[in-house]
């Protein structure tokens, strides 16, 4: 594990002696771990190497393209009134696919509500993610089928669940790892700080994967922190590293390394994936109120999908037939998702009373019976109306 980027950030800055360090946020941006430049040039990094076959590279590209296509379809479905809300991952495909593909099947994921790309990597059917955004459930998948926990909406809470789960993994003597996703906004939450403390003192096999997408709804990262986020780890006693979050190869390499470290029993790592939320926070948000178009345009030039495509084409790792076939696959996925959402039935009213308790509850039983009787009281009039 490197502290190279930490060291770089600690290089003394030229500043007036009278300027207190606390007065101003650090302006010198630390270096990112990068293996693929925005132009699609493959570069080496002293601490993180990666050697992928053409097939694997095409796989990562396919994952990102299909995830983006699914995400676009979900946004459209919200606009059509089929979903109540959607939280787009647009721009964060490399961070999610890179980290998601670093995981083993027996690793466990604790996501936020925006981890659609990670869900894809875990084999969670995209249509399952849409149930909660349509309002038919609060999460329709079995977390243990794919070792992918339910989306967590309250910001940062899941980092503690991930830490506890990782403590359990260590108790079991297993060599799997746990990954907790969160964002720059969550970094201000007490639960995230507590998860750093607990994971450090118990040496829990957990990777904290922070997608710093620069915006917590309308608040920029500067409103959350005065130091680069990955540097927070140092104070808790474990390494932190900042990776180019729009570089799928770097995200894969850095996450793999952090997971391996966890498996070796060396404890947690904080990975800060430096990326950008290209879209709105959710479909209810209006980013034109708080950020400039120029900023988005600058990040467009660093698009995670375009840079991998440039590399694939330059190195002739993929031909036209591949891209054409992928376009068709994308459209098929969009169609499948569209049809699945439209066919998603509303839950039965009696489902209200299901799953509140595992061992049952006399009050719920009483209320269920009252509700059933109330519902039944409409049957006669409905029959009469026929």
């Amino acid at each position, binding site marked *: 594990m490197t502290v190279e980027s930490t060291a770089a950030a600690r290089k003394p800055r030229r500043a007036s002696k009278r300027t207190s360090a606390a007065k101003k946020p650090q302006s010198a941006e630390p270096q990112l771990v990068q293996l693929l430049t925005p132009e699609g040039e493959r570069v080496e990094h002293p601490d993180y190497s990666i050697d992928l076959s053409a097939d694997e590279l095409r796989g990562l590209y396919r994952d990102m393209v299909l995830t983006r296509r699914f995400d676009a379809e979900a946004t459209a479905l919200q606009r059509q009134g089929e979903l109540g809300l959607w939280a787009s991952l647009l721009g964060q495909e490399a961070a999610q696919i890179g980290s998601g593909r670093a995981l083993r099947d027996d690793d466990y994921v604790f996501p936020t509500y925006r981890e659609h790309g990670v869900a894809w990597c875990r084999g969670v059917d995209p249509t399952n993610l849409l149930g909660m955004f349509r309002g038919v459930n609060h999460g329709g998948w079995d977390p243990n089928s794919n070792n992918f926990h339910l989306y967590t909406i309250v910001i940062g809470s899941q980092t503690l669940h991930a830490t506890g789960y990782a403590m359990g993994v260590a108790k079991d003597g297993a060599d799997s790892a746990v990954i907790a996703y969160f964002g720059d906004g969550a970094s201000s939450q007490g639960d995230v700080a507590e998860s750093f403390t607990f994971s450090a003192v118990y040496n829990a096999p957990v990777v904290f994967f922070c997608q710093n997408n620069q915006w917590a709804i309308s608040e920029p990262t500067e409103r959350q922190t005065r130091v680069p986020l990955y540097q927070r780890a140092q104070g808790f006693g474990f390494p932190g590293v900042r990776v180019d979050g729009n570089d799928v190869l770097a995200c894969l390499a850095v996450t793999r390394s952090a997971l391996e470290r966890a498996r070796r029993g060396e404890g947690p790592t904080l990975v800060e994936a430096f990326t950008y939320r290209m879209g709105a926070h959710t479909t209810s948000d209006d980013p034109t109120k708080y950020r400039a178009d120029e900023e988005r345009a600058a990040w467009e030039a660093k698009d995670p999908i375009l840079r991998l495509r440039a590399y694939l084409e330059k190195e002739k790792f993929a031909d036209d037939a591949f891209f054409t076939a992928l376009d068709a696959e994308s459209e098929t996925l969009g169609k499948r998702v569209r049809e699945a959402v439209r066919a998603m039935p509303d839950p039965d009213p009696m489902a209200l009373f*299901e*799953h509140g308790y595992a061992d049952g509850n006399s009050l719920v039983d009483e209320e269920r019976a009252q509700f059933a009787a109330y519902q039944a009281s409409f049957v006669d009039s409905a029959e009469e109306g026929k």
Partner: protein
Amino acid sequence: MAVEKMSIAKALNESLRLALDSDPKVLIMGEDVGKLGGVFRITDGLQKDFGEERVIDTPLAESGIVGTAIGLALRGYRPVVEIQFDGFVFPAYDQIVTQLAKMHARALGKVKLPVVVRIPYGGGIGAVEHHSESPEALFAHVAGLKVVSPSNASDAYWMMQQAVQSDDPVIFFEPKRRYWDKGEVDTEAIPGPLHRAVTVREGSDLTLVAYGPMVKVCLEAAEAAQEEGKSIEVLDLRSMSPIDFDAIQASAEKTGRVVVVHEAPVFYGSGAEIAARITERCFYHLEAPVLRVGGYHVPYPPARLEDEYLPGLDRVLDAVDRSLAY
């Protein structure tokens, strides 16, 4: 029969020991629960016998304790966490209410959260601020949680066994001022259901409903009333969520008068819920409105004032008189 006389504190300790012994997935977590055995010594000696991997001293962060307990439960463990005092539970309130209570339903039943949150609660020990509160209604109001409180050593022993075995999260309120009260515990008994109320004194004129530390006060009040020729029934609720309304109703229909007693503030307290439900269930059996005796709508007072704040014998008897006067 293995009947032993022991304090509530000892009964809890023995029960936790049995839980650790009978299921390797049971863990104890909390601040100072290890070497020290907790500030009330409820976990005394457990770390020595079961090791640091099972009886875990945690960092001083309540949200972290409950949040990591949730993660451990998702991994298949059954954590029993200790919150040191009632007033310290609120940093963990978010994890309890938004995560622990709701996760089973969120997962459509596919995950279980067998977590017990132990909270020593209530006043009467002359403590400083935040050490004497009764926040049970704040938890009973939340769907997905079960909330219980024993009043005696036998219940402490058996209700803890049942709470640990429950696949639902249980908030286990321990009446801290009664920790040292002794009672008989039959460790080979077959306990009744966890959420069933128990009639601890039969009577025919009025029903006192209480739980936790107030059961003793109500029994004393019933004894005193007896001397005046009044026959008071005392119902130990044991569970504040769910509530055994059938038992209260049966008693109310017999006596026609109900007074609910708890240390927690009366306003929005469990007495309000009981009064409403009993009125709905047996309006025509009631000879008087359901009365409530409890704390006032003020922050818990300094220790030198707590005797005025807490329901004592006289305030319970005053309510009994008011009810009988209808």
